[in-house]
């Protein structure tokens, strides 16, 4: 029983036919070719598969694709480009907050939601916002620095 769904992906409307047991993560990576979203644990623990649905971070490994009908999905590809990166992407690069990079897309999407709602977060608020994104490389310190830097550049934080 396939079903056609229509949803917005990174600002563009898309129609797709999906089976009801297909996961959003697979549809994003395989059908849409957007491989910025990563497959880590598949069980909700690591946050590598984080995407935004209607501007809120959720886990695409535990979301059925069929349920995003009429919703707005944003992946890391939707917030900036190589030529014109999002201030968070720029800050992550400059600060050394990216090592292997596997956690980065999810980490940045979680941070983006935080800064969109709360332009001047405390360190504790930053830590809580990224509690669902595991990083095995950086030790988090650089990531927190990058989020603070982006917050300054986005006009939220006094230096």
């Amino acid at each position, binding site marked *: 029983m396939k079903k056609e769904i229509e949803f917005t992906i990174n600002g563009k409307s898309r129609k797709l036919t999906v089976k009801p047991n297909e996961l959003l993560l697979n549809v994003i990576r395989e059908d849409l070719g957007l491989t910025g979203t990563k497959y880590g644990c598949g069980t909700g623990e690591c946050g590598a598969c984080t995407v935004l649905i209607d501007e809120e971070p959720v886990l695409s490994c*535990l979301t059925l694709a069929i349920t995003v009908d009429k919703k707005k999905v944003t992946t890391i590809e939707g917030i900036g480009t190589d030529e014109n990166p999002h201030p968070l992407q720029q800050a992550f690069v400059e600060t050394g907050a990216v090592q292997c990079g596997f956690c980065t897309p999810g980490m940045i999407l979680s941070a983006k939601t935080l800064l969109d709602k709360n332009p001047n977060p405390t360190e504790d608020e930053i830590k809580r916002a990224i509690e669902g994104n595991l990083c095995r490389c950086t030790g988090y310190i650089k990531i927190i620095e990058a989020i603070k830097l982006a917050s300054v550049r986005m006009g939220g934080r006094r230096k």
Partner: protein
Amino acid sequence: MLNDLEYFEPETISDVITFLAKHGKDTKLIAGGTDLLVDMKKGKVKPKYLVNLMKIPELSHIIEDGGGLRIGATTTFREIEESKLIKEKYPLLFEAARAMGTVQIRNMATIGGNICNALPSADIPPALVALDAKAKIVGQSGERFLPLEEFFVGIRKTALESDELIREVHVKSPPAGSGTAFLKIGRTASDLATLNVAVRVTLENNGACKEVRVVVGGGVGPTLIRSKRAETLLEGKILEEPLIEKTAREVSKELKPRPTSIRASPFYKIEVSKVLVKRALMKALGRAKAGEDR
């Protein structure tokens, strides 16, 4: 991966009930999917039909009503955590919701799913039991209310029939003179509780304890445990630290952690419970005295 299945997206509760009456045994309801999809990925459950509850407007709300609160079954933990009403008037629910999962999980996970999955380590049930909450259950034969502690009948077993679902949770507002606290120990930020404790202390005008609830979860039995000993020992008394400490020791005797629990040994859970229950009682008492919770 996930088994083949048929998917339905009803817009009303009565459509769900009609479907369940026909196909209840082969159907799984899905809300946030954070428990169900993990189980399906592991092949533990293979439903023929999946019925999504998230598109039913009448299931999602937080409403203040006649001295209490009605929380719709598909209300997410994030919605609970961010509700001003809950933070101000039901801080116990705020604390329990905030202690649950990660931002992403709280955006997806629902209160109904947390209750219906019936893990003895779930976070919101102890808080709800400490506030004498009831589940509003609907099915083919109409609706019924069940005190939440009676809803849990075993590990992942509930009092729901195959044609029933939880529609709402009703919570009484804590009586004047109440203080509450929720404490949790877990291995990581996102982990299920190794142990969790929800406490409500309600004081008389003269300072004596009028009513108390001490509810312990975290795999200390097939369901959470509402401590009767704590109620007997504390109600009617002036609460002071030595009595609270003694009570915490007594509560620990009611716990029956499984030796096979993966998160901690029975010995650890029992020892830690003494500390956690004492701390939660002291915190709730302090708040009751300060008139913080109402």
